[in-house]
């Protein structure tokens, strides 16, 4: 019984950390630029497809280290795309109404989907976990796929690095200052536009990294960008938009709720995520935590 509960909880955690990996870049960009980047899921998808291609090039012999290096390469490539998107799109969105940002970034998402269809075709593709992570391990009497544990570890590490950076380092504090009051920051001599660009590229790097790390988690299709973005939106809304700590907590919470809901009410798989999001924002419309943290 206890083992069952633990297994369900672990499944919830895996789901939560996977969504957190996606949501972290989304919430970072919103926290600093106040732009809700609809295309984020599209770039996670591109990261995943890039990982798929790179792993196929290594033809089946991908170890854990190579897998992580590939994820970093995807992060770098998507970060570069982020730089272009910042120059071409985001730069123009700073002084206009929010509705324009939604439309513009949604258009970028469509471009991502079109790009993926053109480059990789409309069919489903799948990526196998790297050798070393394809098996499973016993934790006590819990039988967990090693790749699932890897995703949990990756989510926690990304959270810790982001949290340490935002709260402890001078550059993180400058980032937060710009988020809170860009005009005041510029009066301290901070080049606010450069900081905005760093934030966008950082958010895209996180998208590419999430795509690379999560590629073996599911079948890849040109529609996966849209699926990711909905779940990531749920997580960052519940966490408090722009708040990395909030997103981390919300991802765990919603993951657990969804996992237990699906087990105990199997007629409605996956619905508990949406119910929980609706109920939580009914009582805390600002999210669990607010402000950038």
């Amino acid at each position: 019984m206890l083992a069952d509960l633990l297994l369900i909880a672990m499944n919830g955690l895996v789901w939560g950390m996977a969504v957190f990996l996606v949501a972290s870049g989304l919430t970072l960009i919103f926290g600093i630029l106040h732009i809700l980047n609809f295309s984020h899921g599209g770039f996670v998808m591109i990261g995943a497809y890039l990982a798929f291609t790179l792993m196929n090039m290594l033809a089946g012999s991908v170890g854990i280290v190579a897998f992580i290096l590939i994820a970093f390469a995807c992060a770098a490539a998507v970060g570069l795309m982020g730089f272009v998107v910042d120059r071409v799109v985001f730069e123009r969105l700073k002084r206009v109404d929010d509705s324009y940002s939604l439309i513009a970034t949604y258009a970028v998402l469509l471009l991502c989907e079109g790009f993926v269809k053109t480059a990789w075709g409309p069919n489903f593709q799948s990526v196998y976990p790297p050798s070393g992570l394809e098996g499973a391990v016993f934790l006590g009497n819990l039988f967990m796929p090693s790749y699932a544990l890897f995703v949990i570890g990756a989510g926690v590490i990304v959270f810790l690095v982001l949290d340490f950076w935002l709260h402890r380092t001078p550059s993180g504090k400058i980032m937060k200052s710009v988020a809170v009051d860009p005009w005041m920051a510029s009066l301290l001599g901070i080049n606010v536009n450069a900081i905005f660009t760093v934030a966008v590229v950082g958010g895209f790097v996180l998208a590419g990294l999430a795509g690379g790390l999560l590629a073996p988690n599911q079948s890849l299709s040109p529609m996966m960008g849209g699926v990711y973005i909905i779940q990531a939106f749920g997580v960052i809304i519940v966490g408090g938009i722009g708040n990395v700590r909030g997103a981390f907590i919300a991802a765990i919470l919603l993951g657990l709720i969804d996992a237990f809901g699906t087990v105990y009410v199997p007629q409605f798989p996956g619905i508990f995520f949406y119910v929980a999001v609706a109920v939580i924002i009914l009582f805390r419309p600002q999210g669990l935590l607010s402000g950038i943290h």
Partner: protein
Amino acid sequence: MTDLLEARDICFAYPSVRVLKDVSMTVRANECHVIIGPNGAGKTTLFKVLSGETLPQSGTVRYSGEDVTRLDAWKRVHRGIGRTFQVARLFSEQTVLNNVILALECRENIKGTSLGRWWRLNPARELVDEAMSRLAEYGLDRRAQDSAKNLSHGDKKRLELLLTLSLHPKLIMLDEPTAGMAPDDRRAVVAMVNRLREEEGLTLLLTEHDMEVVFGLATRLTVLSQGKVIASGEPEEVRRDPVVHEIYFGKGRHHA
């Protein structure tokens, strides 16, 4: 004395109202230049144009001989222009100490020293020590670990001034530095501004409503009314100007 900041023929209009009409004025090095004028005269808008917050529709702003009309605000800060606001602007969720450390890091960054490098993992020890001693000078050291939003109005203004001065500006623009202050605090501000000018060689540009403060520190006055400069010169000269007298002092109001 040399001209440090010069505004020439500045025009600025919102869609429905012209706020600044051909405003020209000069701030000379090491003077304390005070802009006075009724509410709505355009003082704050002029400040915005001079500090780079808004672009004027026409006219030029020159600083140390360089045309800075279209220069980003942060670049003007790098060239030595600092400013404060009517309502103190701080990073209010941060501690008082962190506010000062951030300003000191920005100063080091402007100077290009290794202490301000963005890849540092921790604030440099010497900057933390310097921040504490600066706070002590301003009587704020006991509040160092408090959140900046919990400071009193006067302390917030003091902290804001400390942040701006941390960047070692040559010219500092203060928008109503004594607004909402008790008389004792106002006198303290006058004493401090005079000390900054006389001992540290700073140039100051202020807007101010309180006439006791104005005549306590101004070395030159410019009077704005309805977006136009109606007089400029030595304080006593301006005080005797018949036009100024009529629209400004003539109504028997001591605090316009």
